[in-house]
């Protein structure tokens, strides 16, 4: 007979094998290929040197961070009113609002990017309105820019922020705001001194989700940013499938992984500092 521990290992072995083959092996191979080059024997840092000297890669690196930060900030600023409005709405209104909030998550990212193309293109709705109102004389070039990527990703990721904020705001007793007001704090002061601190756990979760997803988003930057505003993800794509430089693609991938891990670490560090008074 097998002991309980042995049986548990035996039962989970197929899962380990599958995960190992499908996730760990490719990851290790990617890691390895980042340090190899067809021209050089053995391991080398040539790929990273090339990236370091590439203006394009540098721009993509900073643009990726910039876009992720701006998208996160936008979803925070828009997320609070939405989350609070949702929780304040009556039960009937909530049953209408919840599907509206979650529905975008069920629509393909590609479809939504095309939606933005329709809105932002030179003959699109946005330019039509601007032209019609006489605000601009000729169409504004919005598509295939960093702005378009930020708009698209913000809309894409807003539900994650709203749902995270709602989860923590919902848990807070509704009387906390009233207690604050009875003690002499007006609604604005109450919002900043009570509601925001209460929502910090949700804010941390939402920030992690949105930032990580913005960092690794691919379809939206590809369709809305195009070649004119490459991010690290689209750079990987063009290295891998346009110039077939798989080693360079792997090197960029590694940079992206390190960036994401650094952010996760930062988020946890901030979390531990702040959450001390919450647990």
């Amino acid at each position, binding site marked *: 007979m097998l002991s309980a521990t042995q049986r548990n290992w035996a039962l989970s072995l197929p899962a380990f094998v599958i995960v190992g083959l499908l996730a760990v092996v490719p990851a290790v191979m990617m890691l390895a290929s980042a340090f190899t080059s067809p021209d050089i024997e053995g391991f080398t840092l040539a790929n990273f040197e090339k990236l370091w000297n590439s203006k394009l890669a540098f721009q993509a690196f900073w643009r990726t961070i910039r876009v992720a930060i701006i998208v996160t900030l936008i979803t925070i600023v828009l997320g609070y009113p939405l989350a609070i409005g949702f929780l304040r709405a009556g039960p009937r209104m909530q049953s209408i609002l919840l599907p509206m909030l979650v529905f975008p998550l069920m629509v393909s990212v590609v479809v939504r990017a095309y939606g933005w193309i329709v809105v932002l293109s030179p003959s699109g709705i946005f330019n039509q309105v601007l032209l019609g109102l006489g605000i601009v004389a000729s169409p504004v070039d919005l598509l295939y820019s960093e702005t378009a990527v930020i708009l698209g990703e913000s809309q894409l990721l807003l539900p994650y922020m709203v749902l995270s904020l709602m989860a923590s705001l919902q848990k*807070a*007793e509704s*009387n*906390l705001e*009233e*207690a*604050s*007001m*009875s*003690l*002499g*704090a*007006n*609604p604005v*002061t109450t919002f900043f*001194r*009570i509601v925001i*601190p*209460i929502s*910090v756990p949700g804010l941390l979760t939402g920030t992690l989700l949105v930032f990580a997803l913005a960092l690794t988003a691919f379809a939206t930057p590809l369709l809305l940013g195009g070649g004119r505003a490459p991010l690290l993800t689209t750079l990987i794509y063009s290295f891998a499938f346009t110039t077939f430089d798989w080693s360079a693609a792997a090197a960029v991938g590694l940079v992206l992984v390190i960036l994401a891990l650094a952010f996760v670490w930062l988020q946890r560090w901030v979390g531990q500092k702040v959450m001390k*008074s*919450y*647990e």
Partner: protein
Amino acid sequence: MSSVEVRNLVKKYGDFTAVRDASFRAETGSLISILGPSGCGKTTTLRAIAGFETATSGDILLDDKPVNDIPPWRRNIGIVFQSYALFPFMTVADNVGYGLKMRKMDRDQIARKTDDALNRVGLPDSHLKYPRQLSGGQRQRVALARALVIEPAVMLLDEPLSALDAKLRDEMRFELKRIQRQSGVTTLLVTHDQEEAFTLSDQIVVMNNAVVKQVGSPREIWDNPNCAFVADFIGIENILPAERTTNGVRIAGHDFAALSDAAPGSDIMAAFRSSDLELAGDEAGQFAGQVVGEAYTGNYNVYQVQTGLSEAPIILKTGKSQRLSGTINLKLAPDRIKILERD
């Protein structure tokens, strides 16, 4: 400190009336309770005084000045919520000091007043703890300190003891009264627990179905409930439909002498406590009954007695040494029969 008055308060939510024409007054420094079952409108009334609900009509007066148009954050009212509503991410000291900070006091003053308030509620060294590290009773003391430290015109307590277990509840009842007396703050308490209302209050407002049924001191309400609802709510066991006669009441054809100024012939309810029924022994009583049920409750024996007065058995309470069975004769003293309006 101020007096509080609620004058003809009406609160409607669409077609639903939560409070219908409620009026009562609490004098400066007194403790008044609103007593009633859940859904009777007592919490809505409290929230209207705090300013969280706007009155559909009627007035809230503090020190005889209407405050209907003053928002909650300028009313200077201290509230202790049923759940205490302590700010979970703040220490005890920060919780208590919050209201003082909003009043733009300087650090030293806040620290001094916070110390003082925490001493008053008997929590002298919990400044740096967080609410989650405190017991239920301690949380309540913090909530009390937080409400008192701002020197409110009125302190409102929403079911202050309901979240505590029985033993702690008794202890906090005394504490609450002591703290209220020492600070001298006018206090309005909302509760569904008649014992809580009777032991703590100077005045009791009994509410049911959005209506104020009776306002009076605990003794007045205990001795002279004015309607069947109040009588039932304060635990009078036997309430029977009756008719007023010239010198008493007639219950199901039986005449009893009673003290009342209701007009003869009018339909009323007659009520008497289980402990006010007397055994008539062998001499002729006023009515006879058959013991159909008995229960021991430690200090008392409680009996169900089937009589000609009503279809359901009436309740009789005797001392623990007195046991009854079979047919018994009963009588009722005229001053023990309470005459009530029919609801």
